[in-house]
């Protein structure tokens, strides 16, 4: 018993040490975001609290339309995430479970779309979006971001690990293939779906280049464009960049905090396996 306790304490200590290393840069970001502009590069781990200020955050929020930019990011990231999850779950299931001609080819083809750097397809993609009349329109940012092999691949791997017995019993009861997916498999995939939701939301929330290319008007900027705009040709307002970045990281952290239990509760298939 005591041996186990000691063991546990050691584990906690280890975790604590690792956490300190991992969290340190985040701490640095946060503390720097409260510094005045001349102190940002002053490498001081524990600055005198009296030199810290809330001014940066105030300035960020008084910046023209910063709230609106945050809303845009929220809007884009939410729609992409919800739609993408549904589509990718369907694709992942079809590729992992259903038999059809060309399965392997389609799977390889889908994975291969991950391998071209975005900067190379950006101009052709912009031309397509232009022809769809979606320049300077949030939907021009949203629609191309939905298809994404990453999600399909992750769902595919996940469905591979779900025991087939579950679906078979439903099929015997006369459910259609889609019915099995919708009623049995999809609910099971909650942990992976939530994990992926966090990843998608984050990727789109932090997306900068493509939204910048599509959006022209300031009203359509996403939050990362607004942050980039604190850098001008010859001088960067570093304190504002850092404060705005903290603001923009907050929703992701909250999102994770809220959903993390679902992410890690695991699929309740333990009894069936093996």
């Amino acid at each position: 018993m005591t041996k186990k306790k000691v063991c546990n304490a050691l584990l906690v200590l280890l975790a604590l040490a690792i956490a300190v290393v991992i969290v340190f840069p985040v701490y640095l970001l946060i503390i720097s975001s409260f510094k005045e502009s001349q102190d940002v590069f002053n490498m001081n781990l524990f600055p005198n609290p009296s030199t810290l200020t809330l001014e940066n955050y105030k300035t960020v929020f008084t910046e023209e339309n910063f709230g609106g930019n945050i809303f845009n990011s929220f809007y884009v990231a939410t729609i992409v995430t919800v739609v993408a999850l549904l589509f990718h779950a369907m694709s992942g299931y079809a590729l992992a479970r259903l038999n059809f001609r060309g399965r392997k080819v389609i799977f390889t083809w889908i994975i291969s779309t991950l391998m071209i750097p975005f900067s190379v397809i950006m101009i052709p993609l912009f031309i397509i979006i232009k022809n769809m009349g979606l320049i300077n329109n949030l939907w021009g940012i949203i629609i191309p971001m939905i298809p994404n092999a990453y999600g399909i691949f992750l769902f595919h791997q996940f469905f591979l690990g779900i025991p087939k017995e579950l679906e078979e019993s439903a099929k015997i009861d006369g459910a259609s293939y889609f019915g099995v997916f919708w009623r049995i498999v999809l609910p099971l995939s909650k942990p992976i779906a939530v994990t992926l939701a966090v990843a998608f939301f984050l990727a789109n929330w932090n997306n900068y280049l493509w939204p910048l290319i599509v959006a022209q008007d300031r009203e359509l900027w996403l939050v990362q464009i607004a942050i980039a705009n604190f850098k001008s040709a010859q001088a960067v307002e570093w304190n504002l960049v850092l404060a705005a970045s903290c603001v923009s990281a907050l929703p992701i952290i909250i999102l994770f905090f809220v959903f993390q239990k679902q992410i890690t509760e695991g699929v309740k298939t333990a009894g069936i396996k093996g």
Partner: protein
Amino acid sequence: MKKRLLSIILCAAMAMPGMAVSAKDDKEELKFWVFHSDKELEFFQNCVDQYNSEQSNVEVVLEQIPWDDYNGTKMATAFASGEGPDVFLVAPGLFLKYANSDVLMPLNDYIKPEVLEDFSESSIEGVSVDDEILAIPFEMELFGLYYDKAALEEASVEVPKTWDELYEAAKALTTDSRYGFTMETVKGTHQLFEWYPFLWQTGNDIYNEDKTAAALNKEGVLNNLEIKRKMFEEGYANIKPSRGNTEIGMLCEGETAMQINGTWAISQMQNNYPEMAEQIGVAPLPVPEGGEAASVAGGWKICANANSKNAEEAAKFAVWMFGDDPARMEQWCTQTKFAFAPRQSIIDANEEVYQQGLCAEFTNNILGTEQPEKRLPAEVSTILQDMLQSAYFDTSVSLEDTVTLAEESINDFLSSYDGAL
């Protein structure tokens, strides 16, 4: 619960138009892209408002692009797909790319001859190809050596006048928590921009006189690269500046005792470090033993898109901005920020600005030694940027080899290039 969430999202999706507000009336729209913010953006907005109220042919719409991507991705993607702005700003480094692709509207017919005369000859030369004026320069930024007076005094170091003195000064000024000297370390056009004066001081240039081959492999050039390599290697020059070397903050906050920086640093100091006004000095860039003083004049130019539907109106607006009434350029160069104006009349009329504090140093000691920033084909620019990186940091390759490689690459490029130089 899930359903409710979904319906909220759907409602939001439908309620949100996502579409930008389109033109207010049926006037043709001119898109004008700038990368400025705050005070400078305000200046452009005021000009645009004034223009829109003064004429009824077109409605100019000012659009702001974050600086990082103005030159690169945003502009490139827009032009590549036929969505380029009607009026935009171009830096010398990119001028030839646009000029050679016939994207720039010739402005000769729109500029009055007496106005043209007011511009300095070299500034117009820099924006002309075969006698066609393709852009209008509206500011001139010069380089100088900024220094921290107290730091120099404390180390009893004189302001360096030669390269050797610069090296010695940097050495003497370097402490545990401060570099002696800071220049740009990041590969890019700015690093190259900073280097031109040092090239010209040696009496050399990138090409030979008839521009048929590179002419870099000269003793003076090698010496300059050698001194810098040494300063980086021995840690007297800032090997990893905390920010881009356009920021005077590094000098004002004590990260370095000397810094190469441009005229823009003066307004930066006024805005962000007013208390340092007395403590910072500026001097001409150090020269090689017996060399001639040189600086470089950079600065943006305004131009009109020749492929625009309303190219003529775009040209008219561009000329109205900076190629007609000097008032706007005067305001830009003397009030919105500090820069030298390429028009003599403005410099003459604003003695009180140009003879004030650090500006006076530039006006009296540096102005007149400058050459316009090179307009290079992007390929040559890249070759030179790579050369500088390798010369400063890659000590595994000798300087001779580095420069020879750059020369060969440039010659190789020139042999198949037939655009303007």
